[in-house]
């Protein structure tokens, strides 16, 4: 299932996410963060469900601190839906799958 999730870093964030032709959902996470772990299977399900429509990616804020800094992220998990290189939706916390789907659907409409 995790095959559908792209691992992005400070190095390829611009190319993979900002330059993506389709909307992208990025899960900013870290290993120390419990709610990040709680929401991980939901993100995996979304990656599978929206394969081809939405690029689903994870960015480890420990290994790539620059990108979260640019977006003012100081709490994780933060999930951002990017569309055309811009922040379309920003969600903080381990929210439900329905909540995330709603944010995704809005950008696909």
């Amino acid at each position: 299932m995790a095959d559908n999730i792209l691992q992005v870093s400070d190095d390829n964030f611009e190319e993979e996410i900002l330059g993506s032709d389709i909307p992208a959902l990025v899960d900013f996470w870290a290993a120390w963060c419990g709610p990040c772990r709680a929401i991980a299977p939901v993100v995996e399900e979304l990656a599978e469900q929206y394969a081809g429509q939405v690029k689903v990616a994870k960015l480890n804020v420990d290994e790539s601190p620059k990108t979260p800094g640019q977006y003012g992220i100081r709490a994780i998990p933060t999930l951002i839906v990017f569309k055309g290189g811009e922040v379309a939706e920003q969600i903080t916390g381990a929210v439900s799958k329905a909540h995330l789907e709603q944010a995704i659907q809005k950008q696909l409409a």
Partner: protein
Amino acid sequence: METRDLVIVGAGPAGLTAGLYAARARMDVLLLEKLSPGGQVLTTDMVENWPGAVDGITGFELADRMRDHALKFGLEIQMHEVTKLHADGKYKVLDSPDGEIRAKAVILAVGAQPRKLGMPGEDTLTGKGVSYCGTCDGPFYRDQVVVAIGGGDTAAEEAVFLTRFAKKVYLVHRRDELRAAGVLAERVLQNDKIEVLWSHVPLAVVGEGGVEAVRLKNLKTDEEFDLATDGAFVFVGTVPNTEFLRDVVDMDQQGFIVHDRNQQTSLDGVFSAGDCCSKLLRQIVVAAGEGAVATYAAQKYLEDHHE
């Protein structure tokens, strides 16, 4: 529609213990969880009051062990979010975006989440300096100044945890003594990096695009001032995840589920356990105990009503 004897909603310590007991009783049981198992334990760095874990156990490890323990005895866990519950004759029907499941008995172990203060700036700056989880977000505040708000166990524990990263932690508390357990209060008072602002209440979070200050009021002098800070951590209790159960089971004024001494709620055959329940003390050990009672009571209920 799939029918089960017992459906447990929520996989924190209450739900996982209920599941463990049900699996060991060889009941036809299914546990539903909207995220991965663990619940609020996952936001706890070190659990120091789980009996037998003399050296403490991390929240991650305890959550994993509780899950593995229930799985070992055959508990089935599925990832679905329950969005509705209603009675249908002798059965209860649970709705989720993935479909309906019917149960003869239900245990609600849906847990709670951090309460917001509802002050100006709090919502817009959440994730940008306002946080409800020190163990999640503390590392973003290395060598910075943070304000922690609250005076209970969580506030005390998290304030101390935050000193691992922050150079200074202000603990803002509306009273002039901590409600936290003695051992936790001692650690706060003995920590050089923590300064407690007694008898102060927060009025607002101030900042554009990020937290710059917390506006405080001194309750003794009525003085209002802005305390400059890089982050504001709010630890002022919890709210139950019971919104979807309104008008289904009786609750107290804060929305915590009311149950009798056998965990039976106002709806026959529906039991509740853990932090979503109305009670004096919300702790892992209490949640686990209630989970065990709820399963036993559900088993008795099934024998009496569905045999």
